[in-house]
């Protein structure tokens, strides 16, 4: 059950306190919903879930404490979020954020164009062709083939 191969990631010591946040939220919700009053209340399971989260966060913390100094964390923020991941991830989130206004097609095209260009290191033309073909294929399969709606922007109604 234990595979200790993974070297600790940066900030592993901060993790257990952070894990207590959702645990506390679940416990608070459980108490608000009478989880302590009746076993059949809507709060019972949130309370149990919160307690399990808190308990396992404590266990994770204790284990990290025992292992402290055993191995140095590898790298800093760069190991957590290499620039390639940050860039493509950022593009993805930006495209999603644009969809309520700009609809699906344009942001999706730009996301594909920029990230394919970035990742493949080949020319713009090839990236543009791939992006255009992909968006067209998605439109065909989803909107026309399965008559599923795609996000529609308010700009180009």
């Amino acid at each position: 059950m234990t595979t200790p191969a993974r070297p600790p990631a940066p900030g592993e010591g901060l993790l257990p306190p952070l894990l207590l946040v959702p645990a506390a939220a679940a416990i608070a919700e459980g108490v608000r919903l009478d989880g302590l009053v009746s076993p059949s209340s809507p709060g019972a399971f949130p309370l149990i879930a919160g307690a399990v989260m808190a308990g396992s966060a404590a266990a994770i913390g204790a284990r990290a404490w025992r292992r402290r100094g055993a191995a140095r964390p590898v790298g800093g923020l760069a190991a957590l979020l290499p620039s390639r991941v940050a860039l493509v991830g950022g593009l993805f989130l930006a495209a999603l954020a644009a969809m309520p206004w700009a609809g699906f097609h344009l942001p999706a095209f730009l996301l594909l164009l920029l990230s394919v260009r970035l990742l493949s290191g080949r020319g713009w033309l090839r990236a543009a062709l791939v992006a255009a073909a992909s968006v067209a294929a998605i439109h065909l399969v989803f909107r026309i083939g399965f008559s599923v709606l795609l996000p529609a922007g308010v700009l180009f109604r």
Partner: protein
Amino acid sequence: MEHFLLSWTNPSLLALTAAGTLAGIWIGAIPGLSVTMAVSILVSFTFAWDLNAALAVIAGVFTGGVYGGSRSAILLNIPGSPAAIATALDGYPMARRGEAGAAIGLSTLASFLGGMVGVAALALGAPAIGEVAILFAPRDYLLLAVLGILLVGSLSGESLAKGLFAAALGVALGMAGLDPMTAEPRFTYGSVQMLGGIPYIAAMIGLFGVAEALHQLREPEALRATQRIGRIIPPWPRLKRHIPLTLRASGIGVGIGALPGTGGDIAALIAYDHARRGTRAPEVPFGEGAEEGVVAPEAANNAAVGGAYVPMLTLGIPGDAVTAVIIGALFVHGLRPGPLLLTETPHLFWFTVGNLALANVFLLLFGLAGARAFARIAEVPRAVLIPLILVLCAVGTFAIRNSMADVAWMAAFGVAGYLLRLYGFQMAPIILGMILGPLMDASWRRTVIAAGDSLAGAAAEAAGSAISLVLIAAIVLVLLRAALKARA
């Protein structure tokens, strides 16, 4: 018998079943497009059609769709449907090892065999299975969910504590929204949108699809590499070894599929757990691409299709979400789906049995014929594939119920999943918690309420029921085995 063969001999019904199966495979493979959604669209679409034609397409879409989910699970680590979550656990590692072809081949054969077991159970034992299924009390659903949640033990990765945390987080996330039993909002913090809860498909797409895509970007060498596909049909001795497991998993699938409160997703998870605990010496460890880990869930989820038809055709009680829609379709087409359906329209029963069998044959045909073409996805350069996966994640999530809020959830799950994986958390327990949490919550409370808000009363009732005792014994057995293993 003539009705059994009707769709095999009538060219137009034959073609419709084939078309339905093929479309189903695609619908199943695309996350966000669900069989339930496709079938309910078909109800309007086939409004003016002959009933047999409508049922033929629906049976095809249902069978193909449940199978199709494994395709994207194996090739991309994105389960196309909840029933394929368990398949991704070992199917994707197989593909990364260069055995994408074998994984698809195995999943196709297991699905076919499982589907046929489901049809056989439907044909031979339907009335009896249906009567047993409705005897399952709320407490038995609770016990079944507990049996499922024990899977956390084998899905936790590096530490059990992290697995437990992830599962409990999933349970809490699954509670979000309006509590249907008291109309009390939970974790909504005043938002009306949140009353609808967080769809676990959005979580699944984020945690598996987006987080996996982002992680692959961390490996520069993977960007240029393409995967081998390998041979599709594994050699016979290897196949033969899996037959007993396939049959056991199919049995699990039929049983859980026939229960009105559970479907193929839970069946696949429990079958995976069964394979994991029951296989003494897998050639490859589970989680790293064990063939058993692909065979068991795929057999179970397709067997669950036949299982789901059992209470629907014998009692007019849907076995899962899809058969609920089919009951609606029968109403619209002028039938009276109910306990008398079997005696008043026996031809419908035999037509459905024959039709499902035919759909399974097409599944085998299309599955094996299309496997190589489909597996070419794995050969697309990652530099193109990863951005495309991200776009498909957005499209698929939006398709669930056309909500940008769900898309935002998907993105949040993607980012959180990416980070949690860096700290050694596994994604599967979160989804497991989201699926089983609401079932446990509702059936636990139903059990306690029915016993007059008394825990002792509920325990006494469980002690007096054969079904409950069997389930309790199964749970104790699993726990004992795990304890012995830990000591050894």
